[in-house]
């Protein structure tokens, strides 16, 4: 019987069984950022330990960097302190650091793939829940807590429980105006925000086969929002073509050897999954969230749910809670809901292809004057490439602000925040209460093109109508 990619990677990276029954699991690549690492480095110092494999540890700054002015020192003294801490830790422990000065800084999940650090069949850990993004390359990538960051720094391993593998097939043809973001939101809507607990998600079917690497990253990025510990897509020629020539990709003979080896990681045709879900591509609509959990999602053409639709008391309470927070009327169309802020960026949708796709539609159009619209490249490299193509001009001429690279309004640990109960059409991945910096701020998740449609319309709109898609 064949094996899944997950099983192959698990078997090749299990070091031994620990006394509590967990597996000591080897991590090939450790990605580090400024928010969840300072305490871990502190613990290392307290224990008198070093970073075990500094050459497999890579750091960058993303969460707290301002995106308007990135000149040091930052206006926020706490942000400055955190950056100084990372500067010091990277130097002291000898790890590779893509700082602002290198021109390679960016959101950690954009930087890893961009540099060719993210490779098929490898294991990756990072103190950030969206580490699943790297699964797009057929890597098994986990978000971890700070104490585990310490474990990986000190030992290049962590204690882990095995998990089940659920295969999610999406076959057919996506309808016009439906993007990778809609696919991933739709899956979460169907399976629930906790549907993936205990599982790794393997995404398969012709829809994923035909996706670009950047689209695959958008899908895997949100595996965690469906409760899965990680999500991945089997590596194929698209994966290898993306990696070829990247700074950390192998070259020459080593490249051919690597590709041959990478191919072997893909799940075998006769492998057995713990669970299989089949979804028809034609059934996936442009999707938006209406509530405060990513599974509270509907087609943009649908009405906001009403507590009367609830199947039980628990559901009724959660619909009521979400509607009260979102200040949305039950049973009414979501289309037409006034939007105050539009945000295109984040590790879900802040890559070059996202800005290219939006630029196609906003050329010659203007953001509604009542909307504050910002476009935030996921990395300094994305920024440079976008500028080379003149994308920044297209955005600014349409009325967007074009910012420096960072997480920005995805979680608002930087100056980009919602104010009061502003409603934000957002290409990010979380619509939790208070996520975008204001305790009463409201987030509606959608694809970048849908965000652009909302920005131009001044309200939530069907991009297919606004842009005649």
């Amino acid at each position, binding site marked *: 019987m064949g094996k899944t990619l997950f099983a192959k990677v698990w078997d090749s990276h299990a070091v031994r069984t620990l006394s509590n029954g967990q597996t000591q699991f*080897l991590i090939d690549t450790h990605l580090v950022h400024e928010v969840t690492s300072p305490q871990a480095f502190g613990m290392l110092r307290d224990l008198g330990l070093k970073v075990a*494999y500094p050459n497999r540890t890579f750091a960058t700054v993303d969460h707290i960097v301002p995106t308007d002015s990135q000149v040091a020192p930052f206006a926020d003294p706490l942000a400055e302190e955190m950056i100084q801490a990372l500067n010091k830790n990277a130097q002291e422990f000898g790890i590779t650091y893509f700082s602002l000065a290198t021109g390679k800084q960016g959101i950690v999940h954009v930087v890893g793939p961009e540099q060719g650090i993210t490779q098929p069949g490898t294991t990756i850990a990072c103190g950030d*829940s969206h580490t699943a993004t790297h699964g797009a390359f057929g890597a098994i990538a986990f978000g971890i807590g700070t104490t585990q960051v310490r474990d990986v720094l000190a030992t290049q391993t962590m204690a882990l429980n095995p998990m089940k593998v659920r295969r999610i097939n999406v076959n057919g043809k996506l309808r016009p105006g439906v993007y990778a973001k809609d696919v991933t939101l739709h899956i979460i809507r169907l399976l629930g925000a906790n549907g993936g607990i205990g599982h790794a998600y393997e995404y398969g079917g012709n829809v994923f086969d035909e996706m670009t690497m950047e689209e695959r990253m958008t899908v895997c990025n949100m595996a965690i929002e469906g409760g899965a510990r990680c999500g991945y897509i089997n590596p194929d020629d698209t994966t290898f073509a993306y990696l070829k020539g990247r700074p950390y990709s192998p070259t020459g003979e080593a490249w051919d050897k690597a590709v041959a080896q990478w191919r072997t990681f893909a799940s075998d045709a006769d492998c057995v999954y713990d669970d299989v879900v089949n979804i028809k591509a034609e059934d996936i609509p442009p999707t938006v969230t209406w509530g405060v959990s990513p599974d509270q999602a509907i087609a943009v053409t649908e009405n906001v749910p009403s507590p009367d639709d609830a199947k039980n008391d628990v559901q009724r309470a959660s619909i009521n809670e979400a509607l009260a927070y979102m200040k949305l009327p039950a049973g009414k169309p979501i289309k037409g809901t006034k939007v105050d802020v539009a945000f295109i960026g984040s590790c879900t949708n802040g890559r070059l292809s996202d800005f290219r796709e939006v630029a196609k539609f906003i050329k010659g159009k203007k953001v509604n004057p009542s909307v504050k619209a910002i476009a935030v490249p996921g990395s300094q490299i994305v920024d440079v490439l976008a500028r080379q193509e003149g994308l920044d001009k297209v955005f600014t001429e349409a009325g967007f602000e074009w910012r420096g690279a960072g997480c920005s309004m995805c979680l608002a640990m930087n100056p980009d925040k919602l104010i009061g109960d502003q409603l934000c059409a957002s290409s990010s991945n979380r619509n939790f209460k208070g996520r975008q910096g204001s305790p009463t701020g409201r987030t509606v998740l959608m694809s970048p093109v849908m965000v652009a449609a909302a920005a131009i319309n001044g309200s939530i709109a069907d991009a297919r109508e606004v842009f005649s898609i």
Partner: protein
Amino acid sequence: MALAKITSVSGRAVHVPGADIDTDRIIPARFMKCVTFDGLGEFAFYDVRKNEDGSDKQHPLNEPRFKGASILLADSNFGCGSSREHAPQALYRFGFRAVIAQSFAEIFFGNCTTLGIPCVIASEADIKALSDAVNADPTLEVTVDVANDQVRYGDKSFKASSATTAKEALITGHWDPIGELLEAKDDVASKMKALGWAA
């Protein structure tokens, strides 16, 4: 490394109701601008406990009768969302030493275990009954018996279990794995080499 064996936790309990309580809710991101976890306790559940001017909202954790509670009662998918360890750190520093819920998000669960905070899973009905009991009498002594997969209060008890590996780790004092992980240094080195990573 010798750590305390955590076989049971006793104390008063408080119920924070709601499904899918995420870690952004437990500790809003803006309080993560820190280089140590000290002082996070006062910001636990900040945005649901406090108004923008800093005055108290109505919330179980603000009620004087629940002050000093060390066992947190929650509903389903508790701790979902961000991997931030700041969430369990804030709960620990607020005074919680155990959590009872219908289900937990995995990263949160793992983070809690590593800090020595047992997270045990119980049925909706049992949690509801315990919640009613502590609301009626907040001084009620509740025991989370990790070793025996049980929660006890008054003359009642119910089944509440944890993943076997977490239970094992807590009751044997191996909940922080660093000591054991460090022991395998040579095995790790040979595996790294086998996988093609030069030291």
